[in-house]
């Protein structure tokens, strides 16, 4: 009998737990440890943030589902890692603290045979002074709670605009090293469409602020893609969309301080500037959770497990951008020191960025961290689960399932406005996610036919279809596993 502990019930943790439970017999225990009581389909938070969806449409409670499916659920957060156990506990364990119910505040040593760390990112708002969701007129859409709050703020601005006042809206990244530009991109287009729907677009000035060097970089070094029978750069496509929608942009901006209605930023020329706003949505930096790890003698071994995020089978040797290769990226998400620990989704430490790193003249890093979107998060979680299942069934380590971001495609359906007849979406697929400049030297590291973009109403329908399909899948309804990650 094996016990598999999954830390986190976000996209990757939930995918891993559900596949493990489906494929392993009941003698094996699957335990999920996560502080959140609800599963949330994060991509649809964009629509919560414009008031077109309610939170309850993007979430469902985890406890009843896990009870029904035979998954042990502990509403707790991991605090420290003990991969060798300790003087009293011979088995490896994770010290976790309950965050809800009778046991709230108490800790438990949760032992395991296999550990999946799927704790995603810490939303590091504190890395930017004054960037506090709901304060200083700045909001976030990273959780459904934040998104609800953002809608309140946006609605107040819409009412102001309706009374004939003018307003400035600022959307983008809130830190020089932020990632997840795609989410901010979706939000700015949705906000723009909502202002038009409310008939107040002309009273608002909308500005994109980002740490990207080019528009459409998205932390992926941009893309060369097929669009409308042509080959186009993602920068050209996004420029076309922004110009068409009268959205201004500020690039190469490392936002470093927020005051009430004022964003302070440094640009790549080393200039310190400000941008005023009446409503802002800025994505914070993502960081690791600051976990500590100890060996059986209680010595600190954090550097064997973590490098901000969790260390996996990546090549972490430092090298210049020109020498980065797809081979640097992990394939099995296994920790090299403790082979029964894995970290899929955002929880693993990437070997380096994907976009070309850039610094301001003052030495401040202003370039995107690598994104790990929902699809690769799900795929990497499933392959980790499959390797654990194979290892348990065969009685020896099996790492047949591999999935490097350098050999994996991703679809990103960016909502560009909500509505069954008026909605729009920018559908982009990219293969591979991490550009392989050796294999595809003439097309910026990507295969052209599989890297394409489309704009239009169908994109909105697709995004909506994915919303329902993935919530159906997450609820583990009949034949859920037929829906791919």
């Amino acid at each position, binding site marked *: 009998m094996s016990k598999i502990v999954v830390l986190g019930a976000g996209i990757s943790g939930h995918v891993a737990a559900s596949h493990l439970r489906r494929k392993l017999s009941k003698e094996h225990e699957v335990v999920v440890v996560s502080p959140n009581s609800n599963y949330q389909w994060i991509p649809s938070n964009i629509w919560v943030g414009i008031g077109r969806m309610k939170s309850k449409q993007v979430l469902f409670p985890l406890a009843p589902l896990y009870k029904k499916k035979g998954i042990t659920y502990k509403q707790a957060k991991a605090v420290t890692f003990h991969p060798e156990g300790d003087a009293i506990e011979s088995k490896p364990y994770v010290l976790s603290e309950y965050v809800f119910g009778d046991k709230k505040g108490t800790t438990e040593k949760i032992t395991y045979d296999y550990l999946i760390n799927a704790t995603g990112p810490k939303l590091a708002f504190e890395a930017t002074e004054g960037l506090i969701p709901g304060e200083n007129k700045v909001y976030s859409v990273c959780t459904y709670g934040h998104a609800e709050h953002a809608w309140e703020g946006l609605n107040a601005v819409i009412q102001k605009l309706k009374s004939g006042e003018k307003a400035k809206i600022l959307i983008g990244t809130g830190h020089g090293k932020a990632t997840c530009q795609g989410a901010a991109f979706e939000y700015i287009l949705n906000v723009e469409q909502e202002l038009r729907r409310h008939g107040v677009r002309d009273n608002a000035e909308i500005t994109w602020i980002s740490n990207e060097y080019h528009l459409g970089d998205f932390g992926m070094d941009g893309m060369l893609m097929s669009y409308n029978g042509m080959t186009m750069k993602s920068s050209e496509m996004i420029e076309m969309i922004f110009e*068409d929608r009268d959205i201004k942009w500020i690039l190469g901006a490392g936002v470093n301080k927020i005051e009430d209605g004022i964003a302070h930023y440094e640009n790549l020329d080393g200039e310190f500037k400000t941008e005023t706003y009446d409503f802002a949505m800025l994505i914070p930096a993502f960081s690791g959770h600051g976990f500590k790890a100890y060996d059986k003698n209680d010595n600190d071994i954090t550097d064997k497990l973590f490098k901000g995020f969790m260390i996996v089978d990546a090549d972490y040797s430092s090298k210049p951008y020109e020498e980065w290769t797809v081979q640097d990226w992990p394939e099995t998400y296994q920790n090299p020191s403790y082979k029964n620990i894995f970290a899929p989704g955002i929880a693993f430490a990437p070997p380096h960025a994907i976009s070309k790193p850039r610094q301001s003249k003052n030495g401040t890093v202003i370039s995107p961290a690598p994104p790990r979107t929902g699809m690769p998060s799900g795929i990497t979680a499933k392959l980790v689960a499959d390797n654990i299942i194979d290892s348990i069934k065969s009685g020896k380590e099996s790492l047949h399932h591999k999935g490097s971001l*350098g050999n994996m495609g991703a*679809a990103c359906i960016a909502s560009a406005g909500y509505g069954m007849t008026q909605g729009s979406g920018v559908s982009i697929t990219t293969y591979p996610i991490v550009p392989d400049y050796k294999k595809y030297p003439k097309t910026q590291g990507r295969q052209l036919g599989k890297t394409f973009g489309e704009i239009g*109403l169908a994109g909105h329908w697709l995004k909506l279809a994915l919303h329902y399909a993935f919530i159906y899948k997450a609820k583990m309804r009949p034949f859920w596993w037929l829906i*791919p990650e």
Partner: protein
Amino acid sequence: MTQRISKYQRFKMMNPILQFFKFIYLSIKIMIVVAGGHGGTRKVD
């Protein structure tokens, strides 16, 4: 504001009938990219 997307292009982007076919096309194309599989990069079999 600069009109970068022509009226004809916009008509095509927002026409529900054309977009219905686009929806089917995109769904299949995305499935091909996604279900096209994934693997390692370090060892070429």
